[in-house]
């Protein structure tokens, strides 16, 4: 059950201020060194709402870089958990799509309770992209620049006002009690939204259809030497896996408080691009060669994700393009593969 509303920009900060009374408001803020970073909003006017290319992505709030799973001591264990209610304002369509993929991955037969707990308490107000960045390629994947479904609330900037689309129960919860600031859209609002969408679509510099790439790999047209070439440029910095809103790998470590019998079992981000990720006793090392690791990352996103869930493990956010010092990011590699015969 979706519904559309219109909100004057003059009312936006009022609405967010009210929402902040019930939850931690997270939004895109400019850090002192100029980057756009998602963090807790103190002053609503600091929000930078027109920022397609933010780094890092929002996954920190659902799958933090370091999650305390269990505190242990001789007395027993305790699960700290995270029940903080959060409203995340200003994430982009591709990232909403990425959250959808994470939901699939962390849900399923073995439901990850740490993720689900955070997810349950997180509300998203996303913004459709009127000005995609040069690194964006969501358009070829159907994961942006605006969404038809999968969002809680999707805003489209119409100049002096926003089109507000409500797409979930969480979305309805966020507009409840605010009838006085929202109004029903008129034809002119829909016309402007249509214009905004159309003009956004025409602005993409990158047109990549991963379907073609996938077909080429499946047809055996990509030799291992191609992956070796890609891998030879990898610095193993892990930027790609850490920045990617779809990458989910982690390590589990027990941290001990000095020599004492108490400490914390926590999970921390890990990445298949790192040496040692697959190392086993007896020195068996399935992905010892860096080429095997690079290929593994690409195959997971391009072949196995579609096989398992019908969707690519990439939403075209372009963060790996911005991050990768070796220029072997998804867009670049996919482009090369598309041109290859």
């Amino acid at each position, binding site marked *: 059950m979706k519904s559309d509303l219109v909100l004057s920009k003059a009312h936006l900060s009022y609405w967010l201020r009210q929402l902040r009374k019930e939850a931690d408001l997270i939004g895109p803020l400019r850090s002192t060194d100029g980057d756009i970073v998602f963090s807790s909003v103190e002053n609503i006017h600091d929000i930078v709402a027109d920022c397609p290319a933010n780094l890092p992505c929002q996954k920190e709030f659902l799958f933090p870089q370091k999650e305390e799973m*269990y505190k242990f001591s001789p007395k027993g264990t305790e699960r700290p958990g995270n029940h903080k209610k959060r409203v995340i304002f200003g994430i982009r369509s591709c990232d909403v799509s990425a959250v959808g993929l994470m939901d699939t991955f962390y849900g399923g037969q073995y*439901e990850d*309770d*740490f993720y689900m707990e955070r997810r349950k308490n997180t509300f998203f107000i996303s913004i459709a992209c009127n000005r995609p960045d040069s690194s964006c390629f969501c358009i070829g994947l159907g994961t942006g620049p605006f969404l038809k479904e999968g969002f809680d609330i999707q805003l489209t900037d119409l100049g002096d006002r926003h089109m507000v689309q409500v797409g979930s129960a969480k979305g309805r919860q966020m507009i409840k009690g605010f009838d006085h600031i929202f109004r029903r859209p008129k034809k002119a609002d829909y016309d402007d939204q249509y214009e905004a969408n159309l003009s956004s679509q025409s602005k993409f510099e990158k047109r990549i259809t991963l379907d073609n790439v996938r077909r080429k790999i499946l047809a055996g047209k990509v030799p291992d030497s191609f992956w070796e070439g890609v891998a030879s440029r990898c610095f193993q910095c892990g930027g790609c896996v850490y920045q990617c809103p779809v990458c*989910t790998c982690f390590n589990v470590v027990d941290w001990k408080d000095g020599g004492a019998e108490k400490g914390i079992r926590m999970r921390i981000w*890990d990445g298949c691009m790192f040496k040692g990720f697959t190392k086993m*006793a007896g020195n068996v090392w399935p992905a010892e060669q860096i080429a095997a690791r690079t290929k593994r990352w690409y*195959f*997971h996103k391009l072949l196995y994700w579609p096989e398992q869930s019908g969707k690519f493990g990439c939403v075209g956010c372009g963060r790996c393009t911005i991050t990768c010092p070796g220029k072997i990011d998804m867009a670049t590699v996919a482009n090369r593969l598309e041109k290859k015969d």
Partner: protein
Amino acid sequence: MKNTKVHWTCKDVTRKKNGKRGELYAPVMVRVLDVVEMTPDVKLIKVEKPKGFSYSPGQFLMVSVWGAGEAPISITSTEGVHNEIELCIRKVGLVTSALHNLKPGGLMGVRGPLGNRFPVEMALGKDILFVAGGIGLAPLRALVNFVLVRKGDFGRAAMIYGSRGPSEVLFRDDLKGWAAKGMDITVTIDRKAEGWRQNVGLVTEFLGKQKIPIKEGYAFICGPHIMIKNVMRDLSLMGMPTTHIVTTLEAHMKCGVGKCGHCYMDGKYICTDGPVFEYPELKKSGAF
């Protein structure tokens, strides 16, 4: 035949304990009942079986000691044969050392049973060859005992078991007991050693010397990667249909439930899609 997932009681055990929704990563604390030193670096640890816990041959547990961490360990006992859960653990690093330090009366965390099981029903009425190398005997032992108590349901059973040296031969009592039940057992060590009067050589050298018709028989294999690879290849060259060859794999595992990504190999999670695989599946992936 598909490897059906039979049990998923981890959540249930946890749920009963906490009276609420399952915690995927919460170990259940169980009491250590007995610790037997099998070789200088291998111990058999027997722990109490939690209420409502049931498992099948081939499944494993994420075993943990707070402060050291978790490690995947195969269940080497067999339901209906052993009252306790038995784990055979080789000391190789941090977690396994902490496990070796456990004494009877101590506590160990377990999550599971995890993973699929040996699809042993495929071999009903047929002859079975077990091939084990080193600690790989641990998961196979669960299956051997499973098969031997159902002797009437299967044909003949034979085993080739290889160790590096005489002091590393595991489960000597079981081996004797199985032989007494009519199982044809070949124990071999890699290199000649003083006082050793049994076979010497790699397990592959003894393939085909049992009274198991290769073309109709079934093989269940576990051991080091390279041994698995060679045994599967040789058996199939000797004429055993690849669909009759089953193995169980090891991988670096951090979660055991398909989330951490460590065990991921060619589109499969060894922890949840495996650890037991049939040869054709592995051949497809190119790793074997």
